[in-house]
């Protein structure tokens, strides 16, 4: 599990930034007239695409490769799905969408750290 402050900061920025950006854009794009399931699907695709762009544009260069791409894409996808479902159900300001996305990013980061701590103890030849 990562403990160096620079990279921990990078991990927070990656997950919170990707989730926040996905939430912000999805809340702005998906409106109350949308079907909830369509909103979820569009939010998922949009969130992943935005996270990928953010990763390749700056985060990868600064903070790592797989360690950036996986949490970033996961944060973007989940934030897009949740905000994409929430936006059709009622008025959702972009700032609130961004906050929801950022919180999801925090959750993804914690999940990622927990999985990394778990898997770093398991090193078996059966895995991929």
């Amino acid at each position, binding site marked *: 599990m990562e403990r160096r402050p620079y*990279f921990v900061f*990078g991990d927070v920025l990656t997950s919170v930034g990707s989730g926040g950006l996905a939430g912000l854009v999805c809340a702005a794009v998906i409106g109350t007239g949308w079907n909830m399931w369509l909103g979820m699907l569009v939010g998922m695709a949009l969130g*992943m695409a935005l996270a*990928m762009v953010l990763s390749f544009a700056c*985060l*990868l*260069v*600064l*903070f*790592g*490769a*797989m*360690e*950036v*791409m*996986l949490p970033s*894409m*996961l944060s973007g*996808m989940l934030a897009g799905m949740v905000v994409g479902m929430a936006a059709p159900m009622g008025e959702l300001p972009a700032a609130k969408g961004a906050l929801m996305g950022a919180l999801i990013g925090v959750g993804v980061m914690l999940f*990622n750290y927990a*999985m*990394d701590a778990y*898997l*770093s103890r*398991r*090193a*078996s*030849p*059966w*895995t*991929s």
Partner: protein
Amino acid sequence: MDELTRQRTRAKWDAAAKNFDVMSSRGPEKRWAPYKREFFSAMRGRILFLAVGTGLDIQFFPPNCQIVGIDISPKMLEQARARADAYPGKLELREMDVHALEFPAASFDQVFTSCTFCSVPDPVGGLESLRRVLVPGGELHMFEHTGSRYFPFNLMLNIMTPLARRFGPDMNRPTVANVERAGFRIRDVRHVYLDVVKAIVAEAPASTAG
């Protein structure tokens, strides 16, 4: 591997060479530096280093080793030249494809790879080539990113692969299984990040025939 695939692979990595250091030298290499330093500290005897790239890994090589570094991309090797010249040991760079290694059988005691088998077009064939040039009982050391066994990481890697492979590597290769398929015996697998980035140590069989 056919000539068209070889040319395409060379062209892809020639194109990537220009920005390779910008993309990799700060984030990924600094993040992996402690793991790579430990990984390369196992270098002993006559060593083949596969896919030297722009030579970013040379900084982690222990001094006074006898290494041949190969790469399919002449543009990558051009950039690696200065780093190879600065290495305090014997480091020879050669343009070569892993599927058609120009070395006699049993030429090396160890083979090292670093983020290579995500990109080799025929990974099992490439690993079999490496097995041929290793002495019986020789060691294969790999620092690789692979697919994951766990959801949702495997889903993400599968989604990313079709796009990533256009510009660089596959994200979901079963590299440990490929090493076994190529006839090596796995000695150790250590996870560096999740079960996605890992260090693999394998051993060529006592007889390299076949």
